[in-house]
């Protein structure tokens, strides 16, 4: 089934006229012959049931939350802190005993009197208690909506506390009303980490004789980054820091020593990648470890960047040994998956990444989109200069960085950089749309109403999204695969992850459950003929 402009119009006609006009700009049918523009990162219309969260969710929940040796204090009433308590399934292990605080939800639990009289005093008491209870390596303070409104100066409280306790204490003004989605919070978190942690360490360079990298925008959902690290270590890379899955303050403060930054989720972390380039002269490479072929491409691109024949050979050796292991396993799953269609609607990069994995398995993605991405994630970075800011984007401060006097070091010559840029996505991202076939639907900020309508129109075999839309889809008799938290499964990244994913999908397709949807009395009259006793 396909969708054309006419059915799309008819579908959108069900909206009030103003809403229709707005939503139309967020939806397109891919056509490589035209220059296509999609609207993104603008405010969701009130009353339209979006999957987006808030700046606090992006800052505390996504970027900072996984940093395991830091205690993240939510400054606000209890709800926000509770709701972001370990909800993203980031995994972490720690070498330092007692320095993994991921399972804790720490809140100032503001009461009415704090709203009326201000919450600064309570916050500083909570910081004191946090230090004495946990003895963390650092502390973050995350503001929720009321904090900004009552005018608590959390930056000042953090500074005071830092002096008192002698550890890094950072305040993030990520009130939920800032920006239009989690995306604003990513930006705020990125600025803070760049400003206050990265570069704080003493290291001047990585371990001798090893290529040293950071993995940015990888959150270790279901153990993804462990699989990625396994492959990298096999090839011989040294991973300095992961931002921020299974990450830590201790690693992050020396992230400046890397020779290359890998960018997994472009949306949530490209700010840091750009700033690291400017400040330390480290380029970034857009990577994708979701899917077999894209993992291979990524590994080859990395080897090409370093241009060392030994590394290139080792990379090829690891690729073939990994393939030899997984290909027999994938075979039977591919048979089940082949010819199926999928919807792929996820946060800010997976909507793109998972299309590759679907393709590996012979599944066509007929609709894709992002929850909180910007235009460059759809159309590529070339259009960044065209993006006009609005009131919502202007209230997030930009951080100005300059080359570091001591530590700036060009990692590769400008000539080689330019040449490499033609071959690999170095400091560049081309976006999702150019990689999609024509006639596919791209939707920004898909909502509940449209989910239902698009399913009716395109009838996919699998719908991959999050928990909020999962049940609508399942109620419509279509299997769903949560790509935010993986339905308690994973990892899905890398080579072994692809097998896990194929297995989980096949299990959904093949589940006998679907056979029982139509009861026997609807299909054929019961008791056609007679049943002889004892025969069955």
């Amino acid at each position, binding site marked *: 089934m396909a969708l054309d402009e006419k059915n799309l119009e008819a579908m959108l006609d069900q909206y009030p006229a103003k809403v229709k006009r707005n939503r139309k700009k967020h939806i397109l049918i891919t056509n490589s012959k035209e220059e296509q523009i999609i609207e993104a990162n603008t405010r969701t219309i009130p009353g339209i049931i979006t999957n987006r969260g808030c700046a606090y969710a992006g800052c505390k929940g996504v970027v900072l939350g996984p940093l395991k040796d830091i205690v993240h204090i939510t400054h606000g009433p209890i709800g926000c802190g509770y*709701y972001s308590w370990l909800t993203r399934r980031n995994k972490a292990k720690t070498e330092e005993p007692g320095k993994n605080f991921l399972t804790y939800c720490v809140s100032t639990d503001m009461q009415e009197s704090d709203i009326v009289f201000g919450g600064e005093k309570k916050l500083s008491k909570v910081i004191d208690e946090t230090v004495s209870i946990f003895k963390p390596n650092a502390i973050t303070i995350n503001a929720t909506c009321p904090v900004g409104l009552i005018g608590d100066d959390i930056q000042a409280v953090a500074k005071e506390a830092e002096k008192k306790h002698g550890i890094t204490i950072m305040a993030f003004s990520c009130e939920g009303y800032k920006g239009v989605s989690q995306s604003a919070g990513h930006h705020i978190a990125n600025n803070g980490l760049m400003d206050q942690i990265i570069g704080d360490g003493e290291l001047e360079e990585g371990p001798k004789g090893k290529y040293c990298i950071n993995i940015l925008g990888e959150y270790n959902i279901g153990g993804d980054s462990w699989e990625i690290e396994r492959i990298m270590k096999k090839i011989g890379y040294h991973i300095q820091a992961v931002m921020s899955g299974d990450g830590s303050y201790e690693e992050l403060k020396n992230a400046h020593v890397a020779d290359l930054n890998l960018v997994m989720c472009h949306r949530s972390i490209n700010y840091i990648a750009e700033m690291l380039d400017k400040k330390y002269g480290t380029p970034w490479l857009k990577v994708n470890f979701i899917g077999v072929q894209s993992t291979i491409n990524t590994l080859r691109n990395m080897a090409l960047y370093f241009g060392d024949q030994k590394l290139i050979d080792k990379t090829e050796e690891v690729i073939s040994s990994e393939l030899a292991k997984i290909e027999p396993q994938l075979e039977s799953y591919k048979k089940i998956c082949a010819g199926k269609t999928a919807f792929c609607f996820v946060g800010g990069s997976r909507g793109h990444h998972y299309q590759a994995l679907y393709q590996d398995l012979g599944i066509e993605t007929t609709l894709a989109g992002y929850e909180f991405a910007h235009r460059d994630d759809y159309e590529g970075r070339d259009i960044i200069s065209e993006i006009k800011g609005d009131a919502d984007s202007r209230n997030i401060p930009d951080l100005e960085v300059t080359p570091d006097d001591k530590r700036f070091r060009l990692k590769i010559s400008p000539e080689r950089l330019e040449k490499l840029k033609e071959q690999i996505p170095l400091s560049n991202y081309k976006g999702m749309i150019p990689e999609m076939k024509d006639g596919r639907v791209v939707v920004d900020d898909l909502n509940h109403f449209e989910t239902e309508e698009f399913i009716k129109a395109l009838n996919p075999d699998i719908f991959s999204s999050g928990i909020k839309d999962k049940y609508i889809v399942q109620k419509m008799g279509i299997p769903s695969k949560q790509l935010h938290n993986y339905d308690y499964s994973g990892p899905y990244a890398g080579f072994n992850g692809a097998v896990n994913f194929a297995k989980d999908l096949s299990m959904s397709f093949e589940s006998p459950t679907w056979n029982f949807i139509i009861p026997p009395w609807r299909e054929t009259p019961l008791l056609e003929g007679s049943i002889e006793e004892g025969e069955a």
Partner: protein
Amino acid sequence: MEKEIIYSRNVNENPCNMCMAMGGIIPFKGIEESMVIIHGSQGCSTYMRRHIAEHFNEPIDVGSSSLNEKGTIYGGGDNLKKAIDNIIKVYNPAIIGVLTTCLAETIGEDIDGIASEYLKEKELNNLPIITVSTPGYGNTHAEGYWAAVKRIVTNLAIKKEKGSKVNIIIPQLSPADIREIKRLLQLMEVQYTLLPDFSDTLDRPFERSYKKITKDGTKIKDIVEMPDAVATIQMGVTIEENYSPGKYLEDEFGVPLYNTPIPIGLENTDVFLSLLSQLTGKEVPEALKQERGRLLDCMIDSHKYNAQGTSAIFGEPELVFAATKMCCENGIKPAVVATGSKTAKLAELVKPLCGDASLLDEADFVSIRSISTEMKVNVAIGNSDGKYLTEKEGIPLVRFGFPIHDRIGGQRLLSVGYIGTTMFLDRVTNTLLENKYNNYRKEMYQKFYWEPKKKTLAVPGS
């Protein structure tokens, strides 16, 4: 964790409750063709939908007025009106609930004013918009729930003539529990209005055509007629009067109020059925007497195992009270009885049952944990967040209440009535037995062969 218990802390470490607006959503999900809008920035509603969906395994549509920074300065009236507009267009609801958030309350939004202005502008006379003030810093989700039920009643109820129905007002139970209560009412041949009835809306059977909102749930007309009832039975012994819808019906319309415990536990179920019998003049039918007999039989079978149980019970006050009662009836000793709510009532009610238990209100899991280990608790009863007690201290958890997000089927857990109590008690007993068998060998070994080493203190993150 340091061993000393710090009672007067400022920090809330691992909360035992959620915020008011979260609780306020649930009752609206139990009214026919209803929709809810959260007035504030959109994060709150997204977070809440996520958590409710995870518990019930159902789609949870809740709108948001998506306030932005500008709205925080100039007020959010326009946004809220737009939200109502779009919700009407897409869902065509028969009733809309509007709940506030910390943000809306902090900037002092007049939601009543905005709602009535909207209705006037659009000349809508037949669409009730029910506003509820639910600031997150006000109280917990449990009070948010009651606040919403009360506003629904105060907004809709109109006295006409004397009827013959009984009002049944319930706290947040599982859909399976609600269905069981309805079955009991049917067996007792009672005409009733049950509010809020989310037994079908939040545990919907699979059907071929998906409907966004349905006619299931309490009928609006029935809520309007609640003042005509002969009595109100409100399962709300722990709620404060200002949150009590039953009290309102009594004060305003003279409907006699019977505040009873949730019928979990033998005696609580006896109370409920006797009351129904007294109100209707009908005898408790044979079928229910049989169920009572079976529960008693179960209690006799289990009491020897349960006598070895020491429990920590936590969650919403009303559920905690009922579960505590059930434990006491069969010899499971409650050592910690805790709620995240601010309430003195729970402690008052629980004291006569188990005076030496630690009674905590405004509790977080750190306080529950430290007392549980001190008192050698061997079974925890409450929502999924108690899994922390299992992970850190090895205390097994019987999942009960809301939210249950790490197991499937929270919506199907049956705990009310004689049958439900039997099943609930079995769950507790079996957990104690499993724990006992698992530790049996270890304990024997330790008793007879093993020289204990000095216990090392647990540290956070361990």
